């Protein structure tokens, strides 16, 4: 007989519950610790985000915590920039250097310091710090990530896809997922798809690539990239044509019954009364009445003195023959009958199988509803639809589709998570007024309502280095991090002195046109000085960017730090609860590193920034933990909503509680404020929800609103482009603004299509579910799964050029050429090629061997992508390769030409290795060998 193994071994001495940081999901994790070392990481079953499950990245976090690529001490550059020659210095010296650079700038020209953060999960702190410093030049990575997703949603329905909401997984019967790059909100979406599959609900994928979630979709629409908006508006056409829209919903909860002014200086804006309240025609009286008046029943089909309702405008537009399936089929790459079938499926799920919850509620007009009826069709979208130069309007089109079906915030449909729904009006405006030695006049980022809110100097020149909130991209709510280095290098709009970056691999996969950006970072002027004189970089790992900085502030890993996932930032709420969470040091660092947020507070205190010093000039906060507990943004409102008040019993509002972090730790690292049942749906219009949101500190007063099918902020810009109003755009942007700032969703071909003659193929990237940007390659387990990438070619190209296994292809764009390994993918749009993002690495970065497959065969598509818009001429040629509304980087507009080159063993271009700032990894930690 075999000896029975011991089966009841405890895993460790203790379980410490904190928050994962292997992507932006921020799942709860149980970290099993034995003798101060991490033994095993698993999902926290009680956690609202992941409910116990954990992805490949999270479950291999132990390899991230112990990766040899971890930075070990502050570093000062001693050789030429980019050579990677550094010496270790003390923290005191590092802080003194930083202060010596930043203090004089603040006193004289704070805008010459640009502070941008990448995969930052502490934006409410970093933004507040930048504001206190006084520079207008701050943003996080949203501009190159997916501001179109956020802004398209917020400007339309006061909330967005991704972690800001989710389908009603329990009730929806048809789930339609748009867009390539299935990375965001990944565990919640996976959990949701699992629930649908368990119930046998239908999943439809609209995506050029049938991988991941689309692989399990019951039906796949392999759409041609950049045409999602056209398909969506064609679906709207079909629904309108058949009368399959939710009139009651549109009349009550959207601005469809609002009256559009037909003529005059306010042409295209919505009629208001003298108190500034929008007007509808009340069906009871046939007379204009305020939209939110007690008992008002808005009339969708009304006309008043020649002014028509939004509904009439939108119906007229989308009933037009230009939106018939037959008219769009070729451009979308989807046959017209399939478009019609999809519309019919949606209508069937929405109107033939209604769901209803027997739960009374009262709306903002005071009307009591006995039940909560809903529509069992729901939508979600990935970056694919939005990383185009038409992405903002495409996102809006998708929201229009779900709104005409009456599915948003109703049972079975799409549900927002607190602090959303939150209308544009409840968001701040952008601020940019600089006073040397003083804070900025308000938060940097916000939602503009019209041209008067742009960040422009008197002479019309941009205030911000990234040209956010200018006529080039007026609604750039997240800034344009991808333009930071090119603009700073070009001195357009001006030169800066110090670039301060956190967790953003701008010298590699986070930049368009990587090779060129590397040159910009090392370029010197005639005076022999660097064009970008000083670069401070904070990160935990030896990324490609480290070699290009002058001062390195080494961060901790995610299990060695305090953090808060705050409702002031990107929270982790659920549709039924507001939630926030913390990270805390579950192990101690074994290196001379410090959590960046604590360093930032220390730096702020040394600079004497308001809010960070006491009256006597001493530091106000000991560290980030102290800040999390004691900082108050408004009286009684701090970073965390749970366990507030001296005795820890208050939720949302209350005095700081010195034991707050201990209470969070005892509670599993998170806190949930549950939404009452009667407030769970119809949130923007639900009195009970509005009251709950005020009590929970989400709003300061009830803020009901209707969904914005007709967008006045957009119209104000369009009107300006038509010559109306005092704020006028530059001539070269008028035509563009007239087109793209349409108050109703539209589709236009992505920019560059006209010049795509020699480059017939769309090139896309997506992040694999087992990697987070460039981080995964330093993980000894994950890099075994995916240590190199292929360019996937559709059958058409594969066969036309006679490709064979082991072949490479030359991939050319107007910006350059790369030579990369290819593979065949049958389930792919025939006009499209794609690859996994950020697998390619620079030699010697991330503590990998120079011969690592990531560095020899792995590749980036970034070299092909210009940061400038294709097909420009003359002195207007500096427009960025971005959405003209929001400045979202248009990564997926990329067009290429593919040529077979036969077998190779190396990808091109090949860059020389960076000098190592940490030794090459050899044996993995914990390994027996």
């Amino acid at each position: 007989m075999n000896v029975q193994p011991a089966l009841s071994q405890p895993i460790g001495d203790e379980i410490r519950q904190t928050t994962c940081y292997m992507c932006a999901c921020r799942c709860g994790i149980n970290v099993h610790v034995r003798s101060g070392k991490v033994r095993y990481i698993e999902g926290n079953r009680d956690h609202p985000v992941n409910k116990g499950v954990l992805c490949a990245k999270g479950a291999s976090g132990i390899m991230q915590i112990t990766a040899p690529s971890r930075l070990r001490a502050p570093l000062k550059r001693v050789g030429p920039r980019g050579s990677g020659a550094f010496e270790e210095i003390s923290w005191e010296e590092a802080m003194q250097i930083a202060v010596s650079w930043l203090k004089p700038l603040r006193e004289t020209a704070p805008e010459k310091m640009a502070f941008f953060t990448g995969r930052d999960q502490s934006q409410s702190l970093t933004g507040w710090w930048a504001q206190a410093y006084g520079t207008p030049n701050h943003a996080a990575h949203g501009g190159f990530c997916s501001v179109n997703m956020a802004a398209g949603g917020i400007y339309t329905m006061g909330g967005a896809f991704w972690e800001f909401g989710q389908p009603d997984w329990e009730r929806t019967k048809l789930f339609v997922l748009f867009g390539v790059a299935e990375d965001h909100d990944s565990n919640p979406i996976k959990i949701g798809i699992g629930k649908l599959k368990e119930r046998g609900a239908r999943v439809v994928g609209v995506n050029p690539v049938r991988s991941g979630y689309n692989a399990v979709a019951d039906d796949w629409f392999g759409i041609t990239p950049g045409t999602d908006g056209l398909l969506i508006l064609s679906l709207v056409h079909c629904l309108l044509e058949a009368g399959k829209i939710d009139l009651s919903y549109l009349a009550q909860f959207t601005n469809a019954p609002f009256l559009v002014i037909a003529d005059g200086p306010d042409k295209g804006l919505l009629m208001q009364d003298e108190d500034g309240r929008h007007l509808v025609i009340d069906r009871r009286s046939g007379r204009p009445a305020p939209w939110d008046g007690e008992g008002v029943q808005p009339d969708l089909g009304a006309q008043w003195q020649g002014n028509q309702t939004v509904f009439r405008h939108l119906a007229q537009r989308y009933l037009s023959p230009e939106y018939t399936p037959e008219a769009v089929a070729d451009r979308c790459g989807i046959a017209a009958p399939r478009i019609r079938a999809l519309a019919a499926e949606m209508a069937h799920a929405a109107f033939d199988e209604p769901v209803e919850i027997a739960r009374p509620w009262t709306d903002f007009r005071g009307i009591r509803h006995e039940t909560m009826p809903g529509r069992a069709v729901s939508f979600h979208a990935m970056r694919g639809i939005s990383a185009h130069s038409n992405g903002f309007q495409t996102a809006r089109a998708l929201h229009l589709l779900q709104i005409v079906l009456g599915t948003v915030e109703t049972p079975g449909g799409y549900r927002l998570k607190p602090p959303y729904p939150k209308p544009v009006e409840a968001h701040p405006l952008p601020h940019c007024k600089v006073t040397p030695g003083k804070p900025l006049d308000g938060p940097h980022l916000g939602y503009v309502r019209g041209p008067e809110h742009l960040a422009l100097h008197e002479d019309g020149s941009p205030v911000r280095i990234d040209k956010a909130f200018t006529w080039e991209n007026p609604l750039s709510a997240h800034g344009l991090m991808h333009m930071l280095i090119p603009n700073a290098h070009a001195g357009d709009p001006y030169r800066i002195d110090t670039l301060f970056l956190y967790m953003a691999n701008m010298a590699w996969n986070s930049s368009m046109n990587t090779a060129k950006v590397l040159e910009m970072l090392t370029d010197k002027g005639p005076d022999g000085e660097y064009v970008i004189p000083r670069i401070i970089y904070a990160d935990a790992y030896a990324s490609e960017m480290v070699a290009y900085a002058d001062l390195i502030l080494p961060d901790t890993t995610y299990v060695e730090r305090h953090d808060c996932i705050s409702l002031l930032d990107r929270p982790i709420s659920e549709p039924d609860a507001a939630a926030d969470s913390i990270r805390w040091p579950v192990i101690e660092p074994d290196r001379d590193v410090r959590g960046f947020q604590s360093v930032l507070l220390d730096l702020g205190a040394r600079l004497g920034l308001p809010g960070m010093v006491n009256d006597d000039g001493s530091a106000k906060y000991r560290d980030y933990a102290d800040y999390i507990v004691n900082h108050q943004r408004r009286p009684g409102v701090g970073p965390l909503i749970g366990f507030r008040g001296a005795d820890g019993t208050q939720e949302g509002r209350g005095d700081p509680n010195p034991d707050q972090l201990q209470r969070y730790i005892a509670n599993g690292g998170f806190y949930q404020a549950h939404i009452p049942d009667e407030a769970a749906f119809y949130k923007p219009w639900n009195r009970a929800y509005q009251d709950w949101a005020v009590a929970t500190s989400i709003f300061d007063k009830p803020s009901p609103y209707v969904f914005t099918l007709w967008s006045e902020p957009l119209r104000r810009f369009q009107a300006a482009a038509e010559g109306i109003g005092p704020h006028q755009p530059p001539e070269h942007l008028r035509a563009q603004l007239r087109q793209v700032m349409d108050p109703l969703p539209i589709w236009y071909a992505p920019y560059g299509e006209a010049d795509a003659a020699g480059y017939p193929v769309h090139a896309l990237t997506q992040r694999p579910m087992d990697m987070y940007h460039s981080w995964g390659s330093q993980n000894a387990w994950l890099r075994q799964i995916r240590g190199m990438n292929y360019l996937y070619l559709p059958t058409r190209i594969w066969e036309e050029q006679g490709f064979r296994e082991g072949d490479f292809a030359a991939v050319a764009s107007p910006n350059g050429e790369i030579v990369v390994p290819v593979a065949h993918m049958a389930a792919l749009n025939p006009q499209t090629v794609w690859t996994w993002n950020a697998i390619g690495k620079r030699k010697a970065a991330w503590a990998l061997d120079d011969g690592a497959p990531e560095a020899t065969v792995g590749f980036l598509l970034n070299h092909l992508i210009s940061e400038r818009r294709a097909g420009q001429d003359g002195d207007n040629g500096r427009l960025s390769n971005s959405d003209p509304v929001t400045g979202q980087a248009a990564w997926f507009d990329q067009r290429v030409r593919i040529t077979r080159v036969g077998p190779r063993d190396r990808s091109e271009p090949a860059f020389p290795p960076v000098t190592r700032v940490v030794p090459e990894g050899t044996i993995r930690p914990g390994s027996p060998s």
Partner: protein
Amino acid sequence: MTCLPARTDKKLGLAIDLDTCVGCNACVTACKGWNDQGYGVPLSDQDPYGAHPSGTFLNRVHSYQVVPEQGAAQVVSFPRSCLHCDNAPCVTVCPTGASYKRSEDGIVLVDEDICIGCGLCAWACPYGAREMDQAAGVMKKCTLCVDRIYNEALPEEDREPACVRTCPTGARHFGDFADPDSKVSQLAARRGGYDLMPDMGTRPTNKYLPPRPKDRMDAAPLAPLLDIKTTGFAGWLDRMLEKF
């Protein structure tokens, strides 16, 4: 002992739902992480940061594309690990008795203290379920997390394999196939769970649930309210709003 038990009291195993698995690899690293510190020797990696990394994993997720006779090509994610066969060839070939099938629950295990690392069991397995650990020189395989499912130091709800506990889509189901009323038996019966390479005669315990038929959307197009070309927009609007 390498004689296979005539029968086992239970038949513990996995039902893996290929209609639900999105290929995220969560089960792969959760398995690696658990078994790196759990049953037997750690799962070593060779050249982990180098040019030719390799390592021991007990569960791998493949990805296939399938071209049907009609309709669009499909992609299927396919997890592969030990199937805990009834007629396990890996057990009977073992010269030392290290490889054995438990009579109480049917789990196939390796007693690493006896294993000489000859590799014959891995050769005998048609499914590639066994990987020899290159550092320890002993054979590693899926234990069905035997040190979790009976582990009294774990909360009861956690007494399931690490891959099942972590799977975000719930595509992996753990249970007793000897019990016809168990969830896994019911799933396999309802969804047509099948064996891999059945003619190998291995009689696997684990069952794969096939992808449901795809791309069959056949809804009839919606009927227009009326002919807009003849009635014009006003006609459409009247018809539309008369219901309202």
